[in-house]
């Protein structure tokens, strides 16, 4: 169960792909961190990750966690974004036969799941195939 407060805390990264970057060693973090694990620097600048990339690997989920039962079967992929970040998310609106390693994808804003008929709606990023 996702509580509204936990969902709310993650809105900047889920909606806007907000990352941060160490002002000393330049490493980017997604999800954003409070302290750079390399140099313990606390001054991290706000940045964003890329919205396009390529599939590194993927799988088709047929027995999902309970919030995702209505969506099964669905594809989940690890994507290397154009800025080098690796991001795991659903790949939607595609035929599974069209999924290939190296396939170009882009991020779209989608509903991730809802908390039943009366709970909150959780939004965030998924991948769709890019031409």
């Amino acid at each position, binding site marked *: 169960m996702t509580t509204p407060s936990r969902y709310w805390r993650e809105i900047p990264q889920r*909606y806007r792909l907000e990352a941060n970057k160490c002002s000393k060693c330049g490493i980017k973090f997604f999800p954003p961190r409070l302290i750079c694990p390399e140099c313990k620097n606390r001054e991290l600048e706000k940045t964003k990750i890329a919205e396009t990339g390529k599939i590194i690997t993927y799988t088709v989920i047929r027995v999902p966690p309970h919030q995702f039962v209505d*969506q099964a079967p669905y594809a989940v992929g690890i994507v290397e974004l154009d800025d080098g970040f690796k991001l795991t998310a659903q790949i*939607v609106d595609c035929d599974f036969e069209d999924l290939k390693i190296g396939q170009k994808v882009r991020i779209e804003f*989608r509903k991730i799941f809802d908390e039943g008929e009366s709970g909150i*709606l959780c939004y965030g990023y998924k991948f769709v195939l890019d031409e």
Partner: protein
Amino acid sequence: MEGIIGYGAYIPRNRIKVEEIAKVWGADASSYKRGLMLEEKSVPSPDQDTITMSVEAAKNALRRAGIDPVDIGAVYVGSESHPYAVKPSGTVLAEALGATPEVHTADFEFACKAGTEGMFVALSLVKAGEIKYGLAVGADTSQGAPGDALEYSAAAGAAAFIFGQKNIIARTLDTYSYMTDTPDFWRREYQYYPQHGGRFTGDPAYFSHTKGAAKGIMKKAGMKPVDFDYVIFHQPNGKFPFRVGKMLGFNEKQIEPGWLVNRLGNTYSGSSPLGLTATLDISNPGDRILIVSYGSGAGSDAFIFEVTERIDEVRDMAPKTRDLLDKDKNYLEYGEYAKFRQKIRKAN
């Protein structure tokens, strides 16, 4: 001077054909296709709603506007299918774009007219100098009751417009609104599907208000149908926009570029706004465009825009509406469509 500085569209890739719906209900597909001038309609994926489509359309508008979203002072979403009964769509959109927290947000609802309502208010705030930029989106994932005539047309899509005073793509020459209390179409609280007045939705409703607004704005602006390169009317089906255009003295060439309904369906709050995006896509500097929305209940908002030279710079910065309509379609069978639209009753 004020006007549109960015525009964007979003259309889901799923479609269902009129034949596929007619087959299930034992209806005559060819009479619906002829009578309504409809071939197919768009269908949202299960993870798409008014909010997600608004975000994608607004991002496309931002690509063309080339502004920092922090400078957007108003974010309005017009829809009759806001995902929450209580909780705004606009805050999710504003947050997803990065326009929060110094922003005014509101959700509008007025059957198919909610999109142009948001446009009217955003534009007016820009004109008054209250905000630097205003964003308005018309979006819907509308539902017709299974087997009802509306099921053949109720579709999904979104169009977004950013208004400002500098770097204008289409300057506003005039605005006008025309409203009466007319109960032609409604949905009560807690009801899943809308009700409509059948033939009553025609003459006293759509035609009366669309004509009232079109004549009113032309009189106000001192313009005639021949003064416009393009005109966009609300598109509940394929026939109505051509019929009302003819009544007013417009020809088919003025209507066709923004007439998407035969393969898109009626996107409700997104309908005439999407027609405007498709028209801007093919317009040239100096072109004059009239748009007249219609929402049951009932009323019409009208705007006259004049396209500027900046259209040539921004046209290709985001997907064109006709490309979203024509490319990469995924045809659904009725069973998948019923599942996608949650028309199937499941065990709890």
